[in-house]
């Protein structure tokens, strides 16, 4: 059975070029870049090259790139590092729809005595900028708001948000794990102070990420015990991962145009067809301000896990915000924050595409989806 991978917001396949680029660092070039001998030391220049490629993709200076183990570490390091560096400020602002890497970190700091404000969202998944404006005050250390939502693909007006935060003198962090590689960024022209990204969301392997730290941002190191990354993140470099992320960034810079043409066209075709052929199907989140690859659709009166398992009978991979898929008893916090009714929240399915998907795959899913939905609807006691 052929796998049809429509779950690229969960993780992506490693690009062939990326795999080739990282291979030598898992075999012949295994030296430690901190070593005095050339065998190790020669590796340093590949790290530098990778750093430059990532800086080009983000539109920043390569000295502002810190390598981490991934998005979750970057989020933890950003929030905790800023709070540690400015002990006089005691307030954190975030949103109710953040990834758990941010939300759980903020709530942990709240338990330690910080004041936490979680901004709500409207039915489109957007925050109220006026509310944000009124919340940021002199006591606010950090505002952390995601660039794009992993479940719905909803994109926040990050430049406007950064401007508001900057004007009030707080530090602004954004979890851009879902945005990098899909949306064009230019950090030099923005007011973003800190940005998290994760390699495996843009066709690099798992276990490598970046925290962008704007020059002059007050932040303490999160992981200590070595001089690496100018003592801002200790630990021997994940050289193969770093090289891979550099290559993936180089590729992303070239393909980002395609995300907004080819990938978006496929997504739109999939979405329009499903909404048309499946009765009682609703789109979740802002239709306009959205990642080009993501769509989140609720199928009323049926349950997400059942839909996913039936999809996989045809080799189709997607994900769901239903309670059952997570092992918790409540549907996704993002769906609940947007006020999606329970009739629909339990049956929400996310399709997230990549540049590797084809029109044939989209057509296949379009053909199977109504069959699956009708089959489960026939079993549902809520459908007359």
């Amino acid at each position: 059975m052929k796998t049809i991978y429509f779950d690229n917001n969960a993780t992506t396949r490693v690009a062939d070029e990326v795999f080739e680029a990282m291979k030598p660092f898992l075999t012949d070039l295994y030296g430690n870049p901190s070593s005095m001998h050339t065998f190790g030391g020669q590796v340093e220049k590949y790290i530098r090259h990778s750093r430059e490629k990532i800086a080009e993709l983000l539109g920043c200076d390569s000295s502002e790139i810190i390598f981490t183990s991934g998005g979750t570490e970057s989020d933890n390091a950003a929030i905790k590092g800023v709070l540690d560096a400015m002990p006089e400020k005691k307030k954190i602002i975030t949103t109710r729809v953040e990834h758990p890497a941010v939300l759980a970190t903020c709530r942990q700091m709240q338990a330690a005595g910080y004041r936490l404000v979680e901004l709500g969202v409207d039915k489109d998944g957007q925050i109220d900028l006026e509310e944000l404006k009124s919340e940021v005050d002199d006591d606010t250390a950090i505002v952390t708001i995601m660039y794009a939502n992993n479940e719905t693909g909803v994109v926040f007006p990050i430049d406007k948000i950064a401007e508001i935060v900057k004007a009030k003198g707080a530090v602004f962090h954004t979890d851009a794990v879902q945005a990098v590689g899909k949306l064009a960024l230019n950090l030099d022209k923005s007011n973003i102070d800190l940005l998290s990204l994760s390699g495996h969301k843009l066709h690099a392997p798992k276990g490598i990420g970046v925290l962008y730290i704007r020059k002059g941002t007050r932040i303490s190191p999160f992981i200590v015990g070595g001089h690496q990354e100018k003592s801002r993140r200790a630990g021997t470099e994940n050289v193969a991962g770093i090289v891979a992320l550099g290559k993936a960034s180089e590729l992303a810079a070239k393909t980002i145009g395609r995300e907004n043409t080819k990938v978006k066209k496929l997504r739109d075709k999939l979405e329009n067809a499903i909404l048309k052929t499946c009765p009682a199907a609703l789109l979740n989140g802002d239709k306009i301000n959205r990642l080009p690859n993501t769509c989140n659709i609720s199928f009323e009166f049926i349950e997400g896990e059942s839909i996913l398992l039936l999809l996989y009978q045809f080799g189709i991979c997607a994900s769901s915000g239903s309670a059952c898929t997570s092992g918790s008893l409540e549907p996704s916090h993002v769906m609940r924050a947007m006020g999606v009714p329970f009739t629909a929240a339990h049956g929400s399915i996310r399709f997230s595409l990549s540049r590797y998907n084809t029109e044939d795959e989209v057509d296949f899913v379009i053909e199977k989806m109504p069959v699956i939905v009708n089959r489960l609807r026939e079993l549902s006691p809520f459908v007359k």
Partner: protein
Amino acid sequence: MWDYNPKVMEYFLHPRNAGEIENPDGVGEEGSLACGDALKLTFKLDENGRIADVKFKTFGCASAIASASIMTEMAKGLTIEEAEKITNKDIVDKLGGLPEQKMHCSVMGMEALQAAIANYRSGKGLPQKKIEGKIVCTCFGVTDKEIEKVIVENDLDTVEQVTNYCKAGGGCGSCRGEIELIIEKIRGKKTKKDESQTGPKKLTNLQKIQLIQRTISEQIRPLLKADGGDIDLIDVEGSKVIVAFRGMCSKCPTAEFTMKDVVEARLKEFVSSDIVVEEQSE
């Protein structure tokens, strides 16, 4: 990902007895859309009083569908008295096991069958939901009788297990203290904690407030957090502790008498037995 065995997958992919019987002798409904799973069961008896046909309709995950389907096969041909004895454990055994967090699916099956039998006995053709006992978990509408039943039949001894089996305690979490008491009652552990806790050390006012604060952040807040709720300590006047519920908890109509009790119980246990909790009036 769930590790479903082939039998569960078989009954999910090819469910037996799906549908609804017209003019049934008994109808039972359990669960709701809000809960994320629901089951409607209908059956018809033959002239000998045995279940001639039984059908189900399920909104839910693979294990909910498989549990309902296999249960209809088990019930077919039985008398009402025999069918009544089917437990959730029988359903799980027949399926060859379910993941621990999915046990509530099998309980829903058993309860729908019992509701259908009760409906048949009441002689009305209309579905009616039996509520036996007192509601403990208001989020999922689970009664003390239902909790006791899953504890006894499945030999449970932690609150987490109870949540896995009947969902009680899996929402706002405010009933977890009460569930613990039910477990203790059944397990026969008489709480002798009170005696060991005597010998009250006199706390200074400051120490007392700090202890209250710590108990709230370590013991109480995590419970409420599970559902986006929260609690703030407003004031302490002698042994009177004034708190405010935030987030989801503040909108919950049952917050006043369930949460307040939980908070009070914890503070009595960890701070002082004479603590009284009051909710701040808006």
